[in-house]
Each structure stands twice: as C-alpha cells, then as structure tokens.
C-alpha cells in the first residue's frame, strides 16, 4: 500500500510543481496519472523514489516513510521500485545485457561492481528478462543500435531485474508510435497481472488509460483534480483536467 500524504514540491525559484497532493494506491493496482505537460506528473513519480526531494508531506510505503529514509534505507527501498522513462534512459554505449544487469545494482556489493562483476545467476536472470520482453537476440548489441520500441523493452527488462514491488513509468510510450505503444503497455499490464506489481504510469492518451488503467489520478498545475475510475472521466471532468479549451481526440 502506497500512501501519498500532503505531498508538496516547490523548486528553487518558487515554482510549485506539486501542491498538497494526497492519494492512496493499493498493492497490485494499475494507476494512471494524467494531466497536461507541466502539471507535475513527472515530479510526482520522481518524489516517490526520491530522485527529487519533496519539500513537504509524507510518502508511506508499507508503513515506512520514504521521505525520512536514510541513504542506506533509500538504497533498499529504491531497489524494490523499478522505473521506466519516456526517453528510455539507457546507457547508449553499453551493451543491452549490461543495461539490463544494471537493474541489480541495488543488490550488489558496490566493491564488486567496481570490477564490473555480476553473479552468474544474475546474468541468467537478465537473459530471461530479455526473453520475456522478446529481444534476447539483441543481448550483445550496443543499446543505441536498437530502435525506440526495443530500447523501451530493455528499460522494462532493467526494471524487472530489480524484482520490483512497484514500477513507476514516466510516460513510457510518449515517444513511440501507437502500435509500439500498445505492445509496451501490454508488457506493463502483463507484469501488473502476473507478478502483482503495482504500476504507476503517467499517460497522455485517454484511450490507453481506458484500456489499461484500474484507476486514474489527474493533476492540474500541481493539484489533484480527479481521482477515480477511467470510466468516470466525462466531458465535464475532462475539461477540469485539461482546461476549458481542450477537445477530446481519443
């Protein structure tokens, strides 16, 4: 159970990216986070694993307050939270398999990773994850030789290596074409269904939200403006979320 309580983030310079946001996410839920660009979706997801330090508020995960965790506790928490990014964020010059193995870094003793050593079972596990997302044949290619859709699958495999209990997906399909978008979303859905991993996924297209999400939260200018089922987003709610001039396209 993830509980966000009165979360606020004010950036240096006074921009209020999150304004007193509170909601809960039960274990195993597929939660979509929607809102305009700049509404605070990315900030919200990055506050949860503290890539961004929240200014105020609490994030309770299984009763533990993430915002108060020490660096060592943070390492333990982060390794249970996988993250998938809009621009994939692979290390381009490294091999695909190395990118996937990087998902184990939270478990591995730093002294050994200095020597670039991974345990054998991790390497086998990495191959298995690549098989699961369907690109095991690319394991020894350089990451930047892969197409966008393939790169995002590597990103997912990397998150899976963490044995995650939760995955934060920050607009995972925003730079992909619609067909690829569905294939990536299906992988996330599969992980959510089969492994029982909680997924928080920020999305732009409402048809994807309807198709994949169990529940939706919507942000506008850092404030929570909607919380409920995807089917509850009618025209009025849509204008609340996206502004009066917005028109539905999908």
């Amino acid at each position, binding site marked *: 159970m993830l509980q966000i309580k009165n979360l606020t983030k004010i950036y240096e310079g006074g921009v209020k990216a999150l304004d007193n946001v509170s909601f809960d996410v039960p274990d195993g839920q597929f939660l979509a986070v929607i809102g305009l660009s700049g509404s605070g979706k990315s900030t919200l997801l990055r506050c949860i694993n503290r890539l961004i330090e929240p200014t105020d508020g609490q994030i309770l995960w299984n009763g533990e307050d993430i915002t108060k965790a020490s660096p060592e506790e943070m390492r333990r928490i982060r*390794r249970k939270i996988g993250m998938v990014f809009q621009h994939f964020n692979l290390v381009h010059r490294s091999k695909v398999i190395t990118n996937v193995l990087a998902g184990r870094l939270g478990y591995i003793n*730093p002294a050994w990773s200095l020597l670039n050593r991974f345990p054998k079972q991790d390497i086998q596990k990495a191959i298995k994850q690549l098989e699961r997302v369907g690109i095991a044949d690319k394991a020894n290619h350089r990451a930047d030789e892969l197409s966008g859709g393939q790169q995002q699958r590597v990103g997912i495999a990397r998150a899976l290596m963490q044995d995650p209990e939760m995955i934060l997906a920050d607009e995972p399909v925003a730079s992909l074409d619609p067909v690829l978008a569905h294939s990536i979303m299906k992988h996330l859905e599969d992980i959510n269904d089969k492994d029982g991993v909680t997924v928080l996924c920020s999305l732009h297209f409402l048809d994807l939200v309807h198709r994949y999400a169990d529940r939706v939260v919507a942000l506008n200018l850092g404030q929570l403006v909607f919380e409920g089922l995807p089917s509850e987003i009618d025209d009025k709610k849509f204008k609340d979320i996206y502004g009066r001039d917005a028109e539905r396209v999908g």
Partner: protein
Amino acid sequence: MTEQNNKNKKASPRKSIQLGLAVLFGIVVYAYGFQITKVDLEDLRSERRQESLTRVMRALAKPEIFEYEQEEEIVNAPVYVTCPASGIPALPEPDKSGPYLIITPACAEPGETVQVEGFSFAPNVSGPLRFVPGSDPTNIVTLGRDNIETDATGHFIYEFVLPKRSSEDVQYIRATLKQNVGVPHLTKTAHDTWDKIVETVFLALLATTFGTFLAIPLSFIAARNLMKPVRSPLASIAFSLLGWPLGIVLGYLIVRFVEGISSPFAGNIPINLVSIVVAPALMLVGLRWALPQEEITKPSTSTQIMRWGVLFVSVLIGFYGFFQLASLFKNFGQMGMVPLGRLSFLGNFLFQTGDIVGIITPALGGLAAGGALSSFMGKIGQRTTEKLSPVNVKLFNIVFATLAGATVFGLLGLLVEWLYQIDNSFYTFWGPVLTGGILGLTLASFTKPKDTLPTGLVIYYITRTFLNGLRSIEALVMAIVFVIAVGIGPFAGMMALGLHTIVSLAKLYSEQVESIMAGPLEAIQATGANRLQTIVYAVIPQIIPPYISYTMYRWDINVRMSTIIGFVGGGGIGFLLQQNINLLNYRAASAQMFAIAIVVASMDYISSVLREKYV
C-alpha cells in the same frame, strides 16, 4: 510595430558617436601595443642584420643530417709580402703534374691586392684559401675567402688583399680544397638527435600515461553535476574530517608493520614466489567471504563484525603480497640486468617498478585507511544524527565540529610551520587550533541540527581552486623544481609534464563529465545504485570517447612540450637544441627542429587514425 522598425533602420546619432568612440579606443589600444612591443623595422633594414639573417636561414635550410667522407687537397704557393730589396729569389716551378697555384704578382706590400689562380684541381670542389706566415706556419691567417669553389674544369681565380704580415722570409698561400668521396652517411648530430628524440617521445608517453591515470579520479570530484547532490549532516562531516588524519596515521603504521614482517624474506626468491601466489589467493577468499556479491537481508551485527575483521586481515595479507611482489621484482630485476645484455632495460624496469611499489605502498595504505576510516566515521555521524533528538544532535555537533575544526586547522598550522619555519607555536599551532575550533563552533551553532550541508560543492570548489592554481604554473617552471628534486635529466621532465598533465586533463575531463546525459544517470540511481556504482555504470561509459580524444590531444601537447623541457634540464631533445643554438651551430639545430616537426606531424596522424578507430 512600424514605428519601431523605422527606429531600427535609422542610425541614431548616439549610436554613431558610440561607434566612433569605440573605433578611436581601438586605435589607441593598438597604438599603445606597438609602443609596448617595440614594433620597429629599422633594424631589419640594416645590412648587418640582413646578412646574419641570410646566413642563419641558409644554415637552417641545410640540416646537418648526412655528410660525406672528405678528401683534402692542400696546395701551397710561395709569396713575398713586401718585396725583398734584393729581388725575388728564384722560385721553383710549380709541379704541374698535380694541382697548382699561380700568384700574380709574386710579391706585394701588405694591403695590396694579389690574384690567385688555381689549376688542375678536382672539378666543383670547395674549401678555404688561407695565408701561412713564414715565421710561424701554425698561425694560419684567414683571408675572408673561406669558401672558394672550382669550376667544372678544376680551375678557379680569386683576388684577395694581403694581410699586414710583412716578413723577409718566404710566406705561403694555401688552398685546402675538400672533396666528397663515397656514399653519404649520417652525421654524429643525426645520431645524437635520434637518441634524444626517442627519449623525448617516451618521456611524453610516460608523462601522459601517469597523468591520465591520476586525472580520472580527480575529474569526478571536480565535476559539478556529480558533486552538487552530495550533502551530509554536520556530525558526519566532522567525523569524516577527524577520520582522515587518524586513518592515514594508523594505515601508515599498520602497513609499515606489515613491511616489517615481509622484509626479512625480501631477498629470498622462493618465499617471494610462494607469497605472491598465496597472498592474493588468501586475500580473494577473505574478500569473497567478507563482501558477499548480493545480499537480500540485512546481516546480524556479529556477522558484520566478523566480516570487518576478515576484511581487515585480508587487506593486510594483500599488502604483504604487495611488498613481496616489490621484493621479487627487485630481485629478478637485479639478476636480469647483466645477463640480459641489450634487453637489460627490462631488468631495470622490473627493479625500478619494484622500488616504486615498495615506496608507494605505505602511502597508499595510509590513504586507503584514511578514506576507509573517514567514510566509516562519516556513517557513524550520519546514524547518530538520525537517531538522536534535535537538541542532542546540536550538542553533539557543537562538540565534534569544534574538535574537527581545531584538528584540521592545527594540521594546516603544522604544515605552515614546516614550510616557513616560523618557530612560534602560538602562530603555527595554538592560534590555528583556536581559530578552527571557533569556526567549527560557529558553524555548529548556526546550523539547524538535522540540516545537511553541501559537502560536495565545498570539495568541488577546493579541487577546482587547486587544479586551477597548479595548472597556471607552466610545465617548464615545474621542471625547474623537479630538476632540483630528482636531478637533471628526462625523469625530472617526465615528473613535471606528468603533474601538469594531471591538472589540465582533470579540468578537461571534468567538463566532459558535466556535459553527459542526465537520463542514464537518473535511471541508474533509481535502481538503488550507490554513488560509486552510478559512476561506474552511468558516467564512465558516456565519457570514454571524449576521454580518449583528450588523452591523445594531451599526448600531442606533451610531445611538443617535451621538446623544450630540456631547456631547463628536463631531458629530451630540447637540451641539444638549446646547446646548438647557443653555440651558433644552426645546421645542427636545424636537424633537431626537423626531428621535432616529423615527430609532431606523425603523432598527429597516428592520433587521428586511432581516434577514428576507437571513438
């Protein structure tokens, strides 16, 4: 909108005046520059300057690389300076079977012009025409005709003025014509140049290699994007500051103790051999047990203490191995120096490497222990801050920040004492201790108990200042210091270039680290990787190409620098070059300049090929 366009089109008087003033200012600046740099072509026009310039340019155009064996033809012809009153004694007819000279007239007053005609010499040869006084045949007088040349038939005709050497006796004009024989061969200058240019290239290679190795870690702590997120609470900072000196002293003592254990067996090669196999193996086993590759659950306290113990012992065994390795290298090196003959430099390499390992191991141990203790104590500080209540943290901070400030400033004071020998313990010890203590106390009183301070940025600024300071000292100046430290020779030059390479590469590298993509960094951090792992897996892969190209560029710079580092005694070709310039031996200097040009040009070519291949 239109109004504004019109405004922009028309130049306002104000702008015109500004432009005029700027041009005027520019003229004044350059005029003053001319004055300061003493631009003056008057000297260039003078005949004397032009003559020497021509001479030097011609010498430079003929580098002394090849030469012929030479055969000399020496022919003397008698001449009387002041015609004897009694008339000229009958002179023997010149031997016309070989080359001969005819002087007309055969006698004249000093300062008068006579004509020398040469016959039957080898065609197209050259050499000096000189005057041999009758009274002292060894005291040859030059006549300003040092380069007479024969034509295709072996004939020449020259006029010259007789010197003021009047004598009753017969005197001589001597033509010494030199002829090239055989095939050209390399001059001694060419051989010396080759020796020194090889020295130069290797000097640059070693300086670049050592510089690169040390610049890489420095470049990470001089990179703003990596250091900015590093923040720690005051207690942690104070503890790690105390940990450094303590750890260095302890580490040094412990490693010296290990050295003491190792030294009785230093000369025993079988023990050396066994040790360097067994020690690393033991260490590896220990490390593997103490540092499990993956850990899902937190180990119990007793296991952790056990692990620390095993880790400590393993590291000690490792250091023992190091010392044994150093002894082995020295032994093998010494054995190999004589029998290896021409390859004896390999033996020397082993011996010197062993010596270096032996010397730097205690220093390395001190640093490692300092770092380890500092980070361990920093963690204790962190934990304490987390666990205590704010009031207690504040008290804790005040005590330890004061202590840390006093320690650091006290040590700095001791350094000042050592450098300047002030010999007043108030200024160099108690004063700094007091100041440091007060500074620590003030910092602790003004810091909110649980706040974190930007440790990373402070380290970043200190490193940057240090790098900039050292970088501003040219390698040539550093070489002077190193010549004093290790004596004249290429080693001093290598040290100077190496040091300069470290600081300038660290700066260039760190700017590359600052410009890497933030995305992969974020992704690796999100997996729970700690700082070290983030650097290894997200930073290093991104910076390899620019690091390679900067290293190449630096090698190129070092080759060029090493050509002049010899000017101050740093070895390499610069020493020869300077010597020849000072001796006005421009043809030899020219050979060295050619060598430098060839090396620099081929370096550029090689590095561009390598860059294309690997980047």
